[in-house]
């Protein structure tokens, strides 16, 4: 049995938003001139000569930021139901949520001290 309401609007929205890029790309595929040359396939770097491969090796800093983001994203997902049910679950739940946050703040402090949040 399906009880969620309002998702028909989401469906219409998804259909329309899928149609827009399809129409745009399809129309430009019909009307654009078809020139095949070596320059067509090269990387566009704002007009200067492209240097090297576009699939370069990333800095490990990116991984660190993504890692910290993953952990605190999960924290958000766990705290959201608490916020929704705040009126019903009472003071004890407030203390429990504070413990939850405090444990993760330890992780944040650790990441900070170890330099996982610094760019250079």
């Amino acid at each position, binding site marked *: *049995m399906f009880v969620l309401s309002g*998702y028909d609007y989401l469906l219409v929205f998804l259909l329309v938003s899928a149609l827009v890029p399809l129409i745009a790309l399809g129309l430009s595929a019909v009307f654009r001139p078809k020139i095949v040359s070596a320059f067509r396939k090269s990387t566009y770097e704002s007009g200067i000569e492209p240097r090297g491969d576009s699939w370069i090796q990333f*800095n490990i*800093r990116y991984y660190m930021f*993504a890692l910290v983001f993953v952990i605190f994203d*999960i924290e958000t997902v*766990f705290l959201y139901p608490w916020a929704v*049910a705040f009126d019903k*679950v009472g003071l004890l739940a407030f203390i429990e949520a504070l413990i939850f946050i405090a*444990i993760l703040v330890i992780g944040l402090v650790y990441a900070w001290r170890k330099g996982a949040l610094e760019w250079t």
Partner: protein
Amino acid sequence: MNLGEGVRLVSFGILALIVLGGALGVVLAPSMVHAAFLLGLVFVGMSGLYLLLNADFVAAAQILIYVGAVNVLLLFAIMLVNRRIPDAAAGKRGLRNTIAGFVCLFVFGSLVNGVVRVPWPISTETPIANSTLRIGEQFFSYYLLPFEAVSILLLLALVGAIILARREFVPDRTESGDQPLVLPERPRAEMDETPKLPETTGRR
């Protein structure tokens, strides 16, 4: 207003096609980057299936965590280790993959056989509409200990992953030896100031 029965059936079919096709792409695509983007497509399709099962909060969590965080993490890891593996024993692997495929088909057949035969105790109660509120209540009544255990788990994952991934690539030693140790991932401007240092950023 609500989605009709036919609309739900059609969207289930489309979502199942997206999920299974994307999963096949994840497993079979030759390029790891394409596999990672197809994995994101699979996650989005799964969240659509979750919506069809009245689980709106879980669908949002799926988009937030999997598409927003885990997939990005996977892409960064792929970019960090981006290197083509030379396909050495291709002939032997073909046979192995065929055997593995047949075994998986057999497992799938037996699973579907079990699914069809078992009479599931389908409930006739109306599903509750406000699932997020119910989840919040359950977190702080029956599932309080797992809720706190998750925070410990996340703390350990954060600390462990930082310890494992933090050490930089070992910088190449220069000839003179009295050069200060320079991290390879320095900005390009600093690299240009000390041209004697070996170029280590372009290691692939």
